[in-house]
């Protein structure tokens, strides 16, 4: 038992981690970490990007073995060799990087390896679909379960994973950033489910970078810093206070990291203007939201926050402007000139950038080095007229972004897949900063980014805006939207439902607009 664990155990630990160390080539991801989880409690696991949270969880799930150390589950030493071993003991995991099978339907993903059998021992598709409809309904998802997962948005995929995990018989549920793509509503639903599980005696390990969430739901917290145990925090009557958490995470007194930058008086010209924008139904995602006539102005030097619930069409709007999806009707003007980007390459040439929401599938080149990942959208900038890369300048640029964004990496040649999620996100941001666009659209820019880095990202966005870049920021995290936006629009079902200056906005007001339905909208 580690000395830090202060509170007397109300019941024996379900899981005890004793002195676990994990070394990768050159990197020690975990060093001598100990913690324990008891039945019927929610343990928050917190730490900055790259602190080793996911690594620890993967060890517990049998994905990889520890280099040294001991794990005891239910009083018995536990050496999982593969995820199945963990599953058999009732350890269920929701992984940080979505781990659904894209080619299979929602129903099949939920019942992977345990499809309900009918007579003759054959798979009963009907039962599988009916059951899965009920299962996803628990997390508030209303989808045809026969939809292939490849057609779902990130948020929907995250909900499906949560639904699947909850439908398994479990004694310990491990959740690695389950809420990173979710909005308030879904998060609330998840929280209440977690509460119910706690009552049923299930133990939960919960990782998130949204500290409010953690503070609200966790009974105890274990904080990691640079792969080492930074300490444990206990709920003392009330929720654990944010400054306390941050202090443990970053190792110094918590200044108000989540500072709301002073709102500037934006007087720039309209840079990007969208009128009557409609999109065609994407054949790959027939249930997806299509834009139903969006009007929007984006001024030079402003940060426009776009808020909405999952499936409100924010991503669609971004993709349509960026030339990634086909447009059915409407005009887009940039600096007064009508533009019609047919491909992202067109949009980029015009000075528009997009940081997509689905990092894994739409942004990173997993096996390629960080350097290539960084410079891919600005190859022209780092090559000479003959088409040769000017690698020295490229490296220098990366080095400077590495410093400003505090990207933790071993070397520019390291494959980006070896970085923690938050650090990957920073590389992608750097990719677009290197292009110096006129308009930068960021879709969930801080998904999976830790609290310190998040503030840095916000700072960077503000600085960019100050340089006259027009920024459109889509985020499912309302505090974030409130923190940095000069102006906020809300969306629902492919329409804009409201607009207000950032200074006047509150969560309540935004929620109301986001939930506004069509009839109310008509009367507005």
């Amino acid at each position, binding site marked *: 038992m580690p000395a830090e664990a202060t509170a007397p155990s109300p019941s024996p630990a379900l899981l005890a981690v004793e002195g676990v160390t994990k070394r990768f080539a050159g990197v020690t991801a975990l060093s001598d970490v100990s913690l324990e989880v008891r039945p019927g409690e929610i343990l928050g696991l917190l730490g900055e990007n790259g602190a080793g949270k996911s690594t620890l969880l993967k060890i517990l*799930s049998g*994905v990889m073995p520890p280099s040294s150390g001991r794990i005891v589950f239910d009083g018995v030493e536990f050496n999982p060799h*593969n*995820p*199945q071993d963990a*599953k058999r003991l009732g350890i269920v*995991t929701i*992984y940080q990087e979505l*781990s*659904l*099978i*894209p*080619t*299979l*339907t929602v*129903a*099949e993903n939920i019942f*992977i*390896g*345990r*499809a309900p*059998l009918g007579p003759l*021992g*054959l*798979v009963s*598709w009907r039962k599988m679909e009916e059951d899965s409809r009920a299962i996803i309904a628990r997390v508030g998802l209303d989808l*045809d379960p*026969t*939809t*292939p997962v490849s*057609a779902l948005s990130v948020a929907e995929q995250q909900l499906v994973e949560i639904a699947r995990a909850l439908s398994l018989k479990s004694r310990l549920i491990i959740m690695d950033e389950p809420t990173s793509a979710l909005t308030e509503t879904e998060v609330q639903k998840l929280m209440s489910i977690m509460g119910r599980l706690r009552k049923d005696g299930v133990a939960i390990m919960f990782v998130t970078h949204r500290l409010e969430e953690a503070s609200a739901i966790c009974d105890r917290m274990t904080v990691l810093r640079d792969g080492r145990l930074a300490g444990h925090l206990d709920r003392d009557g009330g929720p654990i206070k944010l400054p306390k958490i941050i202090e443990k995470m970053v190792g110094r007194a918590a200044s108000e990291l989540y500072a709301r930058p002073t709102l500037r008086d934006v007087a720039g010209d309209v840079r990007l203007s969208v009128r009557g924008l409609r999109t065609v*139904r994407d*054949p*790959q995602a*027939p*249930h997806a939201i299509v834009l139903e006539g969006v009007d929007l102005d984006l001024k030079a030097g402003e940060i426009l926050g776009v808020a909405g619930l999952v499936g409100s069409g924010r991503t669609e709007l971004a993709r349509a402007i960026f030339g990634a999806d086909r447009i059915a009707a409407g005009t887009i003007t940039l600096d007064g000139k009508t533009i019609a980007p047919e491909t992202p390459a067109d949009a980029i040439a015009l000075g528009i950038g997009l940081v997509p929401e689905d990092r894994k599938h739409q942004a990173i080149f997993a096996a390629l080095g960080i350097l290539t990942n960084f410079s891919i959208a600005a190859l022209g900038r780092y090559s000479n007229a003959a088409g040769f890369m000017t690698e020295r300048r490229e490296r220098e640029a990366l080095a400077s972004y590495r410093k400003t964004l505090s990207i933790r990496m071993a070397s520019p040649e390291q494959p980006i897949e070896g970085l923690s999620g938050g650090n990957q996100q920073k590389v992608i941001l750097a990719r677009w900063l290197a292009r110096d666009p006129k308009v930068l659209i960021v879709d969930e820019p801080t998904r999976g980014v830790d609290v310190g880095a998040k503030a840095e990202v916000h700072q960077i966005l503000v600085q960019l805006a100050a340089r006259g870049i027009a920024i459109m920021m889509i985020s499912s995290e309302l505090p974030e939207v409130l923190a940095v936006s000069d102006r906020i629009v809300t969306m629902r079902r492919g329409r804009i439902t409201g607009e207000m200056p950032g200074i006047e906005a509150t969560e309540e007001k935004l929620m109301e607009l986001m939930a506004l339905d069509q009839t109310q909208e008509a009367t507005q």
Partner: protein
Amino acid sequence: MTSTTEQTQRGGINVARLLMSFGPLMFLALLIIVFTVLKPSFIDPINIFNIMRQISITGLIALGMTFVILTAGIDLSVGSLLAFCGMVAAVVAKGGTANTLSLSTSGTQGFGWFAALLAAVVVGAIAGGVQGFAITRLKVPPFVVTLGGLTVFRGLTLTISNGGPISGFDASMRWFGTGLIGPVPVPAIIFAAAAILCHIVLRYTRYGRAVYAVGGNAEAARLSGLRVDRILISVYVIVGFFAGLAAFVLSARLNSSEAVAGIGYELTVISAVVIGGTSLFGGIGSVGGTVVGAALIGVLQNGLQFNNVSSYTQSIVIGLILILAVAFDRWLKSRVRR
């Protein structure tokens, strides 16, 4: 609504599955109509049965290959493995490696057709299993392992038979290649039965669905608790089994096991699977598609031969039509979805 139906392709009801193989199927129908108009005797039952018998050999292997390709694997060794299993079957059937054709084809001193069949499929399955083992344990990509297998099995076949064929099987064995049940050739019946079985396995068993899952995303499948390595090995066992079965039928049909049998089959077989809509990147595809793909190739070859198209022109036409058939399928799918 169309779109939702379309979406069910990877696991929905049968109508949707039919729609999926729609493109190749429509193209097949078109070809049959064209050939029949050109020469009505094309749809003589005799000719149709001929075609069925002709596609049964590569078709059987294509069934197994469907499993492999669904896992994002590939097996280039099937042609050589066919020759190897055929030679093994011949040795067992004849009780030796005598290359000569015995004068009376009835009186063999071997172990009979059943032993020959058993030997062929067991050897095929073991050979497939060994390759699967190399793929999963030695972490060598399937392309490399089975390319190695392609030359190894050919070398083994030549070594067994010292280059020559082994010919002359008894009537009971030959029945599997040349017999009829009613008017239907036995190889066609074997192929049809195997296709139905494979369809059921892939579509209605947990094992089948696991094959799709592994191909869709092996890492996610592992995280979901599937025994990915075992499933990967199993698909190579299956394709090996089918190569053995096809070898037995082919030897029975030709009354001879040749050391040069099956050269180039890997491409024909993989074409049938891919034209049938199975993705080489795994996770998407169906047995129905493979059957249609095999039929399309068979009809095309037979039909062109039937119309006495010169052999060189045949090559050109077959190549172009294969591309067109798949292009048509893609176009149709992009239309149906809207």
